């Protein structure tokens, strides 16, 4: 074999290896999805799974309606807090991003995204639960909102920065004040990107368990008042039931995991679709 042929054979070997490793990287995704679907489908295929709350062990027909309602309330409240504030913060970074303070905000947001979520749970426990003298849905929502905020800030900034300066200048030339230019021209123009960020944050919050452990704690009953009640959440259900020695509850944990995966991956795929539209639109501007 000539030297050149040997070199190209070595190169081919490594290229193949890289593709094999890439394939290996995607194997766990397939396995997780496969087992979640096959083990989760039997419990999920009963309608009671969605309409009934927890039933004591041995009583058939138990479901996760309490967790579905709880997750909707927890994530809904967290979104109400985090999304408007996050959009404002993102607009600040994109529109006034040269300010020195903006660099610190960016760094802090990125660090906050990587902060262990269990520490956020401890923080909200000290801040809210200790003061209210009770675990509550609102404490869980605040913990989730802290998780969501930096995601919304950074994705909004990215989306707003894509909007060409001409749009800002036209607005200002018409005599619009700065806030109306930002909120009524720029943010709507960047809406798909902003929505993507909000959706990603919602997906992330829906799947988080650790920040809820010391804040909303969980509940076997169907409760809906976030101010006075502990609320159950889907990820909490998976976590608590999976560690029980009862087959019935373990099956329900798989069912809840399937619902959670469908929810989270559904939101993610939807946000990707929205983002692709944004990129196409930005190309037309």
């Amino acid at each position: 074999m000539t030297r050149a042929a040997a070199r190209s054979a070595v190169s081919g070997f490594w290229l193949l290896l890289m593709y094999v490793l890439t394939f290996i990287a995607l194997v766990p995704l397939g396995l997780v999805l496969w087992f979640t679907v096959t083990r989760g489908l039997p419990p999920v295929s009963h309608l009671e799974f969605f309409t009934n709350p927890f039933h004591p062990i041995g009583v058939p027909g138990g479901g996760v309606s309490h967790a579905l309602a709880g997750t909707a309330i927890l994530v809904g409240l967290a979104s109400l807090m985090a999304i408007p504030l996050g959009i404002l913060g993102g607009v600040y970074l994109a529109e006034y991003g040269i300010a020195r303070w903006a660099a610190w905000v960016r760094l802090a947001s990125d660090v906050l995204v990587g902060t262990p979520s269990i520490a956020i749970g401890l923080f909200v426990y000290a801040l809210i639960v200790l003061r209210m003298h009770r675990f509550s849905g609102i404490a869980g929502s605040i913990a989730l909102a802290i998780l969501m905020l930096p995601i919304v800030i950074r994705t909004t900034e990215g989306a707003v920065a894509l909007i060409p300066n001409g749009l800002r200048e036209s607005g200002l030339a018409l005599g619009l004040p700065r806030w109306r230019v930002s909120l009524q021209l720029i943010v709507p123009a960047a809406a798909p990107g902003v929505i993507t960020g909000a959706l990603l944050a919602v997906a992330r919050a829906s799947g988080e368990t650790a920040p809820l452990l010391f804040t909303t704690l969980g509940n076997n009953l169907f409760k809906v008042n976030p101010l006075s009640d502990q609320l159950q959440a889907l990820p909490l259900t998976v976590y608590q039931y999976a560690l029980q020695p009862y087959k019935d509850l373990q099956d329900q944990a798989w069912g809840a995991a399937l619902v959670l995966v469908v929810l989270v991956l559904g939101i993610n795929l939807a946000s990707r679709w929205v983002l692709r539209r944004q990129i196409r639109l930005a190309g037309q501007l």
Partner: protein
Amino acid sequence: MAVAAKALPGKQSFNRPPDRFRTVAGVAASLAPAILLLITLTLLQQAAPAIRHFGIGFLVGTDWNPVTDSFGALPAIFGTVSSAFIALAIALPVGVAVAVVLAEQGQARLRGIIGTGVELLAAIPSVVYGIWALYVMAPWTFLHIELPISQHATTVGWLSLPSVRSLFSASLVLAVMILPTLVAISRDVIRAVPRGLKENAIALGATWWETTWKIILPAARNGIFGATILALGRALGETIAVTMVIGNRYEIPHSIFQPAYTLASVIANEFNESTGALYPAALVELGLVLILVTLVLNVGALLLVHSISRDSRLTA
């Protein structure tokens, strides 16, 4: 106002009232650093009883006994650090390979599928990895990896005494979970390597592998290092999946196939049941150790990654 005028070329700043919108938006943005600071200070305050009582000895103590109020963090620190590093050792080669494949040109369709797959890997909730690892992965790796290895390597202490829930199982699931972080950032820094470098190498007759291994990866080295540190931070702080498979034994394990414990897992398991003054404070101090370590790692890695993308913008 001078700054705002600079931010927006062509905008005149004469005779304008102070920009109240800017103030409001600035306050909203400042929530991020404020919360970060507040988390650290609150944990410091909550951990104060334990810090005062144990001093620096807390970090090297190996005892964890709520009955005698004797707490030391070393086994949890050991479990956290070792699980994270084993996970990195597994995930890093795979992650860089995926990043190299994704950063290549052409075959957009295939790359699109791989990229989507990796992003979905990042989207799957921790607790779903946990239940999968607990019921599917850990029993399988016990039978097909841990048992055979320990039977063949009977004289190697750190590969002995296999157990279903173990440091190794936790590391394996962590490796899967940090892979998307590694891939996403490595791909971006590899793409940020100036095209000219690659074209020069090819023009000189280098093969694909020689170009990748000797030109592109060295040029992207610092960025991949930053990605590694960020992934390390994620691995250190991961809670739920690890808690479900690491076995939760408060000891420094003699073998990677034995149960261990991590900082985050101890907190997750014990905080709601902790009573008295010292026990919860000791748990919060574990959280404080965790958050300080991840804070330092994240800030360092982010500054590194950001400085690289800024440099590449200058040279591109």
